[in-house]
């Protein structure tokens, strides 16, 4: 597998608090990479650093072997942030097709994506009538509009009911089968176990380990990712 994203020596502080401490991480093309960590571990900050939404103090972000530029982010990265909420006074299809037009996508693509996300029936409804799960799926559709190589998701299942979580996880599997590289953060460990090719554990702003799920489980002789995670961060 080839490296698609490389983070080298990423440091970031807010005031005097060091939030990211020398992060080194490689993401390979076609994998589902899960970033695990407790609240406040630095997951969201790392994602923002990857996407250039914050200015890092030092370090380097590379995309396909060269320094990641704005145009790389705009064309090759799809992003669904935590607690995303689109303009509620617009209809789903209206939001998606206008956004798509700006990204040079044909209107038909917006319809197809809504169908893929299971929102075909709701396409002419105002977003304010959508449930949290529907909004997440609409957000996923929005981040797929430009057909990005890398999909970055920050806590994509947060606040969803079990059915909503299953739907989003299934969609991620489907997208990965279609060749997309997925990088997502979560602290819901049960979802990671059957989904991720590799997981990275971030704790107090530093990467504790990066390995395949099976390797992590073997290391602590357990079949529970939760237990392995807690042992890895020294919490159990």
């Amino acid at each position, binding site marked *: 597998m080839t490296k698609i994203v490389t983070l080298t020596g990423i440091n970031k502080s807010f005031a005097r608090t060091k939030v990211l401490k020398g992060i080194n991480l490689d993401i390979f093309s076609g994998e589902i990479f899960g970033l695990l960590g407790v609240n406040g571990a630095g997951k969201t900050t790392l994602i923002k650093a990857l996407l250039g939404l*914050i200015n890092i103090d030092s370090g380097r972000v590379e995309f396909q072997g060269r320094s990641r530029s704005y145009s790389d982010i705009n064309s090759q990265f799809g*992003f669904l942030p935590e607690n995303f*909420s689109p*303009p509620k006074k617009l209809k789903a299809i209206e939001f998606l097709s206008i*956004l798509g037009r*700006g990204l040079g996508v044909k209107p038909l693509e917006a319809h197809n994506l809504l169908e893929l996300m299971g929102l075909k029936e709701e396409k002419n409804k105002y977003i304010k009538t959508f449930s949290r799960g529907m909004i997440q799926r609409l957000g996923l559709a929005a981040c797929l509009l430009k057909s990005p190589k890398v999909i970055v998701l920050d806590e994509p299942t947060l606040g969803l009911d079990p059915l909503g979580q299953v739907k989003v996880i299934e969609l991620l599997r489907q997208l990965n089968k279609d060749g997309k590289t997925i990088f997502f953060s979560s602290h819901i460990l049960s979802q990671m176990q059957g989904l991720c090719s590799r997981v990275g554990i971030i704790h107090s702003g530093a990467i504790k380990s990066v390995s395949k799920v099976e390797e992590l489980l073997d290391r602590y002789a357990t079949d529970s990712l939760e237990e392995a995670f807690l042992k890895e961060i020294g919490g159990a």
Partner: protein
Amino acid sequence: MKKIFCLACLSFREAVREKFFFGAIFFFFFYLGFCALLSKLSVGYSLKVLQDAGFIGIELTAVVLVVFSFVTSFFKEKETSLLQVYLSNFKPREVIIGKILGYVALSFLYLILSSIFFGLVSVLHAGFTPQALVALYPVFLKTVIIIGFASLFSALFSSSTLALLATLFIYLSSEALPSALVIVGAYGGLFQKGFLRAVYFMLPQADKFEISNRIFYSSAPGLSYFFWITLYSIIYAFILWIINLFIFQKNEY
């Protein structure tokens, strides 16, 4: 350009369906009714009262509408991470200019609607001067500059209240400065005169945008006025946009 147009379209469609927009229209409608009543009571000055009060109402409601809508929308987009999604799809300069253009379109629509209401009330109550509508063009340009300030302060401050107050303060200061200059010119010291003149040149020069009295009571300004006021507004808005872009790119989202 297509990207900017799409972002403007998203902002405009959202803003035009917000309560603020309908609220401003309804408020202006009732305000016009009040102006009509006042003009009936002002025997001999009916037209003057209606025109003066009507124009003040149009400008004030337009400014309040664009400032409140822009600032609340900007901070809502920040809070709901929509801004992050836009920034992952578009360049910062496209995001800012798209948003500003959306609100410029909102201001334009509002001024058209309010001038229609104003024209109707004028026809029904005291007679209508069609040339009066020309005076709305500088009002529109003024709202464009104010939107530029709203955008600048939204990027500069982390609180929506601060951004709102700062923008309204700039608007009120620029309105009050020409009168303050006259007073200080007559009674003030050298430092006061110099200071106020410097501030007057830095802020939008509100008196230059005020042509309704000239249209109502003498003659409309020539084409050269419209050329220069348009150029002034474009340059002013452009400078604001450059500063805004610099701050926006430095910010973290």
